[in-house]
């Protein structure tokens, strides 16, 4: 077994342990976005798909590189966009209902500021469950 392979295996095992440690702390509330986020992370296989191009100099190589690039690009772009879309929906407070024009700016400003200020605190409080 070559040294490079041993290094690779070491990295794999350590990354696996880091993954277990980090992901074990993600609350159940976020499990769907988490899976979607890890989904986009495995889109890194795009790098592998592109690297096929280095030695692909015949039709077989081109076809395989093309399909791999389509698959991986769809995976990475779609994964990140849909994760972002989902996470945007998680609000600490219900978004203010559409109110009459006079009130709107004032109210939404307060909510926005409050949200920004609370961001760091909420992070420390974990998911900040059970407001009551």
């Amino acid at each position, binding site marked *: 077994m070559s040294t490079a392979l041993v290094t690779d295996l070491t990295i794999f095992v350590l*990354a696996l342990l880091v993954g277990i440690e980090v992901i074990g702390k993600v609350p*159940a509330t976020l499990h769907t976005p988490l*899976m979607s986020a890890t989904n986009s992370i495995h889109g*890194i*296989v795009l790098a592998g798909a592109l690297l096929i191009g280095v030695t692909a100099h015949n039709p077989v190589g081109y076809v395989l590189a093309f399909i791999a690039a389509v698959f991986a690009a769809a995976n990475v772009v779609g994964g990140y966009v849909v994760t972002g879309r989902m996470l945007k929906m*998680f*609000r600490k407070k219900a978004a203010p209902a559409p109110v009459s024009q006079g009130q709107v700016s004032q109210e939404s400003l307060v909510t926005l500021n409050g949200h920004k200020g609370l961001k760091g605190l909420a992070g420390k409080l974990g998911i900040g469950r059970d407001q009551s």
Partner: protein
Amino acid sequence: MSGFTTNVQLIYVLAAACFVIGLHLMNSPATARRGNQVSIAGMVIAGVATLILLIHDGTVTATGWIVLIAGALIGSAVGLYAARTIQMTAIPQLVSMFNSVGGGAAALVAIYGYYQVEHTGGVLGSTTVFTVLDVIIGSVTFSGSIIAAGKLQGLIGGQPIIFKGGRLLNLVLAVVAIGTAAYMLTTASLPALLIVVLASLGFGVMMVLPIGGADMPVVISLLNAFTGTAVAMAGFVIGNWALIVAGALVGASGGILTKLMADAMNRSLVNIIVGGFGTGDSVAAVGGPVDAQVRSIAADDAAIQLAYASKVIIVPGYGLAAAQAQHGVAELGKILEDRGIEVSYAIHPVAGRMPGHMNVLLAEANVPYPQLVEMDDINPEFARTDVALVIGANDVTNPAARRPGNEISGMPILDVDQAKSIIVIKRSMGHGYAGLENELYFNPKTSMYFADAKKAMTELASAVKTLVA
């Protein structure tokens, strides 16, 4: 490895660090969006590093560039379109499709690597074992995830599809794949490669077909873990650390979620992998307290209970999402909250079609996340709850799980029966996936409100409004 390539590997390490930090930030909804952005930054870094490698190498032909760029653009467009237009109820299908293409791409990387060795008459190196593993795992994930997505989308029946000799065929496919793979290790042979790919694709299909709809959260998680492993194997094949780290992270995540889902459904991981899939669906109904009476109520009575409660817990199940009632529930919750009633949502780990699915559906309906409470945290709360409102959830509320000797014994449940009164919204007295009578419905504290979830929400909301107006 030349000096230049080594330096680029360092950039990949930076990308890998971004992935870890990004996932770490997902431990709270408040920081999760930033986590996603950090992760994107890592991906951009990795992409740029790869381009630098390709340009520096200078061996990519003009056709090669066109093929790669066209492929990446087409893939991005498809991914972007799907991600932008997908309904939140259909997220599990999309995640499954991304699993599929991710696994497929990883398999292709290995297939190409092996083909290249055979084509150029090169020697099979020590990484061949990873190449072969990548081909198998990637192919199984590719076809298995497509079947899973088809089931979730309703293109293939959600019922487990079992036919005579299915198990045997599965075993044969596995033996053929692994046996031929062993041969591939020693001799570079394209026919052998083809056989392994086909057998693995077949195995993926056969593995998921017999699985019932209720087991989908486990299946998606498992396939997610497979994809991660396949990508890590691809990393070994091309000697790229970013792929190895990213793949390991995804593998760990998928593994953890699989375990959580399996525990929540009271099935052992071994039982699931070896082929105990979908057994819960085929169990015959077990006789419950047949002579017991259920109490049926109308919207007005339910509204009175809700409007004059001081603490209400809403228990949503997949039936809620199936009836598209999440917005109605959120509205009812809001009306009650505005009356000063304490409202929270009890989320069982397997509520929905994938881990955490119900949270996303409720978040989309504008329910603030602090109201979404996990099972272990909400269970002690039921005892001081005036009304527990169960919508489209069944087995996860059945007190029979606490007793030994039935299908769901030992399954973690929500302690709904501890609440002072219980309202169950259900279309009929039909059974849940376990085919078991729910004892909760015969509890003297329980009232049954027979209606479609969406219609019931509208009726309840207007009834509460008239009551308090």
